[in-house]
């Protein structure tokens, strides 16, 4: 064993290496995003995930080894969700004023998410058990996996589809809202959080704090309402 290789073998086994690499990849992705003036296509979540996957592939690192280090970053998703209360409280007057539009958008949005997934899935000839994993795709990963499992779908497939939906929504939300001439940051943020959960919320916070606050509310409410509506929606499949 050569000296360099021994060092690599030692370092690649400590959480420090992959934690540091994750943070560096994020710094690079964020730098690309700011350099392109936060262009929707340079979405830091998408860029960072692609970069990270390339690094893991090139170094031949097994995912469990990587996760030993990256888990510290992954863990922060929980506290960050709790912290959504802070902008929500700060903009409480705006939120209370928008209660009626929010609830209407919540119901319409979650029903459209469910029904469009089911009807499009059937139209494309996707088998029943795969559609079931597709149904909760707009909901935050943990809840979506639970919903898919309860309906008899594959939770891993559901998690993959959730992440793809998040990245799609994170990229598309800004150009789509510009196209629709929707300038209200509350509506834009709420749509991002409802359709694209945390990844949409991350995008919303980069654009505007009000949008971020509304995205956070939509993320929480949609997890709840989709868990109730998904079993009902799936009955239309048969």
């Amino acid at each position, binding site marked *: 064993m050569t000296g360099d290789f021994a060092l690599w073998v030692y370092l690649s086994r400590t959480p420090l290496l992959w934690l540091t690499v994750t943070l560096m990849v994020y710094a690079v992705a964020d730098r690309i995003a700011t350099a392109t003036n936060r262009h929707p296509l340079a979405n830091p979540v998408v860029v960072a995930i692609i970069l990270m996957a390339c690094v893991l592939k090139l170094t031949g690192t097994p995912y469990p080894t990587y996760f030993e280090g990256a888990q510290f970053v992954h863990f922060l998703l929980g506290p960050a969700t709790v912290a959504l209360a802070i902008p929500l409280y700060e903009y409480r007057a705006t939120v209370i004023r928008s209660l009626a539009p929010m609830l209407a958008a919540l119901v319409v949005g979650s029903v459209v998410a469910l029904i469009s997934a089911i009807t499009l899935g059937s139209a494309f000839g996707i088998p029943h058990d*795969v559609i079931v994993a597709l149904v909760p795709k707009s909901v935050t990963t943990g809840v979506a996996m639970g919903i898919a499992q309860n309906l008899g779908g594959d939770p891993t497939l559901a998690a*993959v589809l959730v992440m793809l939906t998040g990245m799609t929504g994170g990229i598309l939300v800004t150009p789509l809202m510009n196209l629709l001439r929707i300038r209200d940051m509350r*509506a834009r943020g709420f749509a991002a959080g409802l359709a694209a959960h945390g990844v949409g919320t991350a995008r919303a916070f980069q654009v505007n704090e009000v949008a971020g606050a509304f995205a956070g509310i939509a993320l929480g409410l949609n997890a709840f309402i989709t868990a109730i509506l998904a079993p009902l929606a799936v009955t239309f499949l048969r």
Partner: protein
Amino acid sequence: MIVSFTLILLAQLVGEAMAKASGLPVPGPVVGMALLLLFLVLRDRAPRRAERILPPPLVDGNLERSGKGLLANLSLMFIPAGAGIVGRLDVLEAHGVALACVVVVSTLATLTATALTFVAVKRWVAPGDRP
């Protein structure tokens, strides 16, 4: 910062416990968000008493700064799970193209329906309301 982070973790911990105990389909951290919101409301109801009892970081704006610091870097936290997903793209197998189409079209439909409903209802209940 440590005190602020402790409060956020405490809210999550109690939230997880409540979510588990109730069996409702809500993630623990979302219950934690509601608990932190409740804390902020109660704190500002009696600001003088809060200042006397609570540790300074929870009343002097440190809690707010710490929380916003986390949210500003929300993108970072999706990297570990996202990198794992790339390794599991094999589950898409046979239906890859069809699934990609459904995801894109359904996401566009959901974004459009949500935002248009929001704007329409807002105009209806509060015509003069400008963002």
